[in-house]
């Protein structure tokens, strides 16, 4: 067989899926990659919290208020508990709440936004009014009120599970943003021809909503959800700091800072580390969200196809 020495045959490229394009674009963002690395480190250390020899909730009064040392990397708090362990367990709580909130937000916001955008008419009017009314409430104030009330009610689920309570409180005020987003997507894509084609083929409304129109919204929904985790962590720690969030002795970054307040002058490390964790978590999430927003931008992906 004659050898083709002067012709360079390029190897076959792997199929160019949407996901790989998005990943490629995401990788180009230095900020987003740094954020992803930091967040991964955070999540791994939080998951490994159980490896510590110290218990986050058992007090050890002999060793209270130790400054950071090699035995206690972040020092100890007023009851002698190791701060590093408490910070890591607090991280578990904060991250769990963050994900729960996003789950609740999506479960409420997406259906409501879809219905409002797809059906229009009086359904849209009513739902939009509810969305606007919820957005007219002063956020932190309402959350404090809701948290206080939920605590007074005698529901056993809520009494034992302050994580769930907080997630509900935060979710109730976060779903309108997602609902608005989804509604806008549906208003835009409702009139597309492929939707009409699907209708002509006899597709049910539900099928059209889920299979035809909703996928257009995945990009913005993903970005909004990612940033939503950061927002939830911020609000949860604010609520816990004020005493209306996660209740002691369960550690949360917010209530660790609350306890640190009275000892600020003497034992400042109690305040520095938990806040630092909140800061790192949120900033890495924001970087990732920003990178995702660029990576998922359909116009830029279209431009990439022409490359």
């Amino acid at each position: 067989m004659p050898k083709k020495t002067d012709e360079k045959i390029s190897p076959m490229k792997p199929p160019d899926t949407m996901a790989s394009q998005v990943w490629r674009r995401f990788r180009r963002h230095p900020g987003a990659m740094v954020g992803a690395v930091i967040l991964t480190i955070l999540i791994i250390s939080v998951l490994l919290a159980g490896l510590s020899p110290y218990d986050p909730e058992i007090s050890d009064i002999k060793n209270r208020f130790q400054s950071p040392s090699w035995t206690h990397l972040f020092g100890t708090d007023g009851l002698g508990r190791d701060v590093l362990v408490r910070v890591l367990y607090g991280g578990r709580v904060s991250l769990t709440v963050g994900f729960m909130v996003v789950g609740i937000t999506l479960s409420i916001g997406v259906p409501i936004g879809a219905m409002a955008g797809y059906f229009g008419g009086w359904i849209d009017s009513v739902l939009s009014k509810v969305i606007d009314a919820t957005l007219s409430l002063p956020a932190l104030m309402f959350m404090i009120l809701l948290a206080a009330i939920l605590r007074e009610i005698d529901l056993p689920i809520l009494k034992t599970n302050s994580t769930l309570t907080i997630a509900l409180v935060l979710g109730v005020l976060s779903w309108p943003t997602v609902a608005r987003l989804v509604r806008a997507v549906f208003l835009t894509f409702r009139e597309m021809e492929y939707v009409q084609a699907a209708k002509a083929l006899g597709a049910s409304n539900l099928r059209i909503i889920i299979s035809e129109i909703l996928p257009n919204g995945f990009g913005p929904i993903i970005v909004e959800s990612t940033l939503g985790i950061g927002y939830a962590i911020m609000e949860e720690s604010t609520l816990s700091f004020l005493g209306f969030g996660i209740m002691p002795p369960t550690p949360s970054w917010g209530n660790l800072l609350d306890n640190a307040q009275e000892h600020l002058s003497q034992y400042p490390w109690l305040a520095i580390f938990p806040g630092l964790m909140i800061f790192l978590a949120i900033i890495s999430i924001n970087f990732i969200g920003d990178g995702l927003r660029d990576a998922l931008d359909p116009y830029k992906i279209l431009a990439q196809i022409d490359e």
Partner: protein
Amino acid sequence: MGQYIVRRLLQAIPMLLLVSIILFALINIAPGGPLAQFSRSRRLSGERVEALKRQFGLDKPLPVQYIVWLAGNDWMAIDTDGNGITDSYGTRKGVLRGDFGFSFQNREPVLEQIMDRLPNTIYLMGITLIVVAIVAIPIGIISAVKQYSAFDITVTTLSFMGQAMPEFWLGLILILVFYVTLDNPVTGKALLPGGGMFTIGAEFSLVDRINHLILPVSMGVVGWVAWWSRFLRSSMLEVINQDYIRTARAKGQSERKVLYRHALKNALIPLITMIMIDFPYVFTGAIVVERIFSWPGMGRLYYNSATSRDYPMLMGVLILGSVVIILSNLMADIIYAYLDPRVRYD
């Protein structure tokens, strides 16, 4: 234009009612109304509690209670002993006439207490807002004009950091640095005060007031400036990349004129809307600052009331906050429609 304003006003009223219904329903779910303390008292018999209930109108169905809360009950007959004969008329004037009820804690009228503290909050948050505007607007504009310069990159990075920083942590760190650690070289005491609006007992001094303002204002300013400068930068960039700017440049306009006359004016529209939408924060955003810096304002009042479950007070502040938000959004829409005629015809 007038039609647009009327339309928006008419839309705002049911919104206010809806918000008030949500809040009213929520408060009534909570156990522990005004009579909770009485139900445990041994001196009050069941009969007396019933009579009190009827006097407060708590035996009526909820929708009636809502109307009473809104419009008062001094036009309604109250029958205290349940025998069918009217004994007295109600005493409440209702929210629409400014009667927000009485605080559970100290029996003072809610509105009075709010109005007592409100000026302090507006003082603090108003100054914060002004500082934010003075700092963020130039930064955002310069950042957009000199895109990708060292200034821009620094500013963008700093604003990412500013947005991720928890307010209350920043406040604690500021106290740690300026009150706990650093000392005033002249007096030997702390460099900046750790709380309060002014030094108690001292005469009025502008310097003293400013000293007490520096830390709380700095705490509030960081996150706000971060958000505004990013927003301004992106809206300014959007405007600069428009075709009409390119036309102005092609026509030979000096760069300065292009920026000030064409770009800035159009970028101002989203800016003004954003200021109006953020404005309610002056009323509602002070809870954490006032708690950390012991500021005697409405935020701290709200926090204390929440801790002691003083529902009438909480209701009053929430209603006030919601009204401010709804009115601000209304103003934002109207101003936007005034500045950008394309919006009016929807």
